[in-house]
C-alpha cells in the first residue's frame, strides 16, 4: 500500500488532522483550523481532515512521528473557545465505550498499538476545543468560536513545534 520512501519520509514528519462535521456548526472547528494551517504550507507538517473517527483515524495517522488531532469537545462547565491538550492516557477510561461504528479513538489507538506497534506515532496530542453549538445544522462556526480561531491556531502550531516526546 505504501512504498518505503514514503514511510521513511513520513517517519520524520508531523501530521495535524482536523476531525468533525462541517455542516454541524462548531463540530467542524477542527477542520476549519486545519484548513487555515494548510494555507500556511509549513514544511515538515502535513495537514489532513477527517469527517470520521475510530479506525479511519488510525488509517490516517500510521507512520507519522507525531500526530496532533484537533476536534470539538463539549464539557460540563467549559467556556466556548477554551482549548485543552489531551494525551492518549486521558482516554483510557473510554476504551470500552462506543462511538462511530463501535470503535472510538481510544479503542482504535489501542488496536493499532497491538497490531502495528512499529507504525504508530511516537506521540499523539489531542487538542480539544470547547464548542458552543454542536446541535444546529449550519456551515458557519458560532461567532465565539470564529473569534477564537487565531488563538487556537497559534496553540496548535506551538504544540506541533515542541520536540517530540519519546
Amino acid at each position, binding site marked *: 500500500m505504501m512504498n518505503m520512501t514514503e514511510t521513511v519520509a513520513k517517519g520524520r514528519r508531523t501530521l495535524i488532522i482536523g476531525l468533525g*462535521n462541517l*455542516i454541524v456548526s462548531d463540530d467542524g472547528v477542527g477542520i476549519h483550523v486545519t484548513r487555515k494551517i494548510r494555507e500556511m504550507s509549513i514544511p515538515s507538517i502535513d495537514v489532513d481532515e477527517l469527517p*470520521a473517527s475510530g*479506525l479511519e483515524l488510525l488509517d490516517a495517522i500510521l507512520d507519522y512521528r507525531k500526530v496532533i488531532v484537533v476536534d470539538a469537545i463539549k464539557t460540563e462547565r467549559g467556556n466556548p473557545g477554551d482549548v485543552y491538550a489531551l494525551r492518549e492516557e486521558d482516554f483510557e477510561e473510554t476504551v470500552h465505550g462506543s462511538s462511530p*461504528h463501535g470503535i472510538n479513538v481510544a479503542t482504535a489507538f489501542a*488496536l493499532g498499538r497491538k497490531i502495528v506497534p512499529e507504525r504508530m506515532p511516537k506521540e499523539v496530542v489531542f487538542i480539544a476545543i470547547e464548542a458552543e453549538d*454542536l*446541535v444546529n445544522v449550519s456551515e458557519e462556526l458560532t461567532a465565539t468560536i470564529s473569534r477564537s480561531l487565531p488563538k487556537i491556531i497559534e496553540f496548535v502550531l506551538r504544540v506541533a513545534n515542541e520536540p517530540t516526546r519519546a
Partner: protein
Amino acid sequence: MTGPIINDATVKTKEKKITIDPITRLEGHGKIEIFLDDAGNVANAYLQVPELRGFERFCIGRHVQELPVLTNRLCGVCPAAHHIASTKALDAVFNAEPTETAKKLRELFYMGQYTHSHIAHFYALAAPDFVLGPSAPASKRNVLGVVDAVGVPIGAEVIKHRSYGQKVQEIIGGRATHPVFGLPGGVSKQISEEERLQMVEMAKSCVEFGKFTVKLFHDVVLANKDYLGLILNQDAYYLETYYMGMVDKNNKSNFYDGDIRVVDQTGKQVVKFKPSEYLDIIAEHVEPWTYMKMPYLKSVGWKGFEVGPSSGIYRVGPLGRINVCEGYTTPLAQAEYEVLAKTMKDLGVKGPVHHTLAFHWARVIELQYAGERMLELANDKSITSDDIRGAFNPPTEGVGICEAPRGTLIHHYASDKDGICTKINMIVATTNNYAAINTSVKQAAKALIKNGEVSPGLLNKVEMAFRCYDPCNSCGTHALNGGPALEVNVHRKDGSIVKTLSNF
C-alpha cells in the same frame, strides 16, 4: 484461550423498568426501555431514538448537485451509500443514463464500501459476542478482546482488508470517507491502468479474506452448539416478517442497481417495484415516543409491533437481501448461500430464514460476494475508458435507491428548472428496519428476562437482538452526529427505574 462465556449469574430485581442506554456498539444515540409487570416479567420494551435535527430542511434551497456531498455528511458510517443513492437520484432528476464505464466504477467503488463496512461490523461489533461470549465481562467484550483471543496476525488481516475497502473507495471516489465523484449520468474521474491493477491485487486478497471469514464463521459460531442454539432460539430471535431488498433481472442479489423485491413470510413474491414507485409500496407510521418513523407495506397496513402476514412490517439489510434473492452471481458467495439454505432446510426451515441472528451469516456471505464482485469489476479492462459521463436533461424529480450495507436506502429529490432542490425525502436502511428492530427487542426481552432475574449477560443478549441489524440511528433520524449510543432502563410498573445499564 478459555471458551466463550455464554451465560452469567442473574440477580433478582424488584424493579419494574430496565433501561439500556446508550446501546453499546451502535451508531447514534438510542435507549432501550424495558417495562416489567408485577411478576417481574417483561410487559413491554421499546428502542427509543431521541434526536431530530431536520436535515431535509437544510437541503431545500441548495443546488441538487450538492446533495451527493451534503447527504453523505449525515454520518461517518455509511457516507458512500448515501453518495451512491444520491448520485442515482440525480441520474433520475436529470433523466441521465450513466455510461457503462461509470456504472462499473460506481459499483466497484461500492464493493469497497461493503468490504469495509461488513468487516467492521462482523469483526468489531459482532465477533465480541461470538468469540468472547455474550456474557463475557464488558471490559473484555470488544474488538481488543477479540484480537487477544484470535491473535495479532488475524487482527492485522482484518485491519488490512478493511483498509483495502477504503483504498478502493479512495481511488475511485476521490476520498474514502466522504466521496465526491458522483455526477448525474456518470462520475467525475477516469481511473488509470495502474490504479486498476492495484485494485485487482487488493480484490484478490479480499476474495481470500472472504473465504477466511466464512470458514471462521463456521468454526467459531456454527460449530459451537451454544451459539447455534442462540441462532435457532425461536423464543428470543425469530420474527416472521416480510423482507425487502434489491435484485437484478434474474432475482440475484445486487447492491448497486436493480428492482426492489418484496417477499412474504413463505418466500412468495409480493411485489417487485422500480425506485420511482416506492411511495406506492411504502407508508410510514409515527409513534409519539420516538423521532424515527416506522415504514410498513402500504398494501398490508400497520398493525403495531406484530409480525405475520397481516402486519406490514418488513426487514431489510443482509437478512432481507438473502431472503428476497434467488442466489448470487459469484461462485463462492453462491456456494455459501447454498450451504446456508441446506443447513436451514435440514433443520426443518421452509421458505425465508426468519432467525434474526442469521443476519450475521448473511453478512458474511455478502462480504464474500463483495470481494468477488470487486475482482470481477477490477479485472474488466474497459473501466479505464474515458467514457465516464453521459448526457443529461433539464432537472425535474427523481428517486435513487441502492442497498446500503444496512439495507435499502431511498433518496428522492425534486428540483426547479434551475436545479434548486424544492423537496427531499429519504428513507434510510435503519428506518426501514426500525419497526422490526423494536419487535425484536421486545421479543428478546420477553424471552430472556423472567421473574425479575437480570444480569449484564442477559441484557447483552437483548442488545444482540438489535445489534445484528447493524443499526445506525444517527442517519435514521438524520441527526448527523456519531456519538455514543445506548442505555437500557428496566422500569417497575409505576414507571420508576429498577436498573440502568450504560456504557458512558
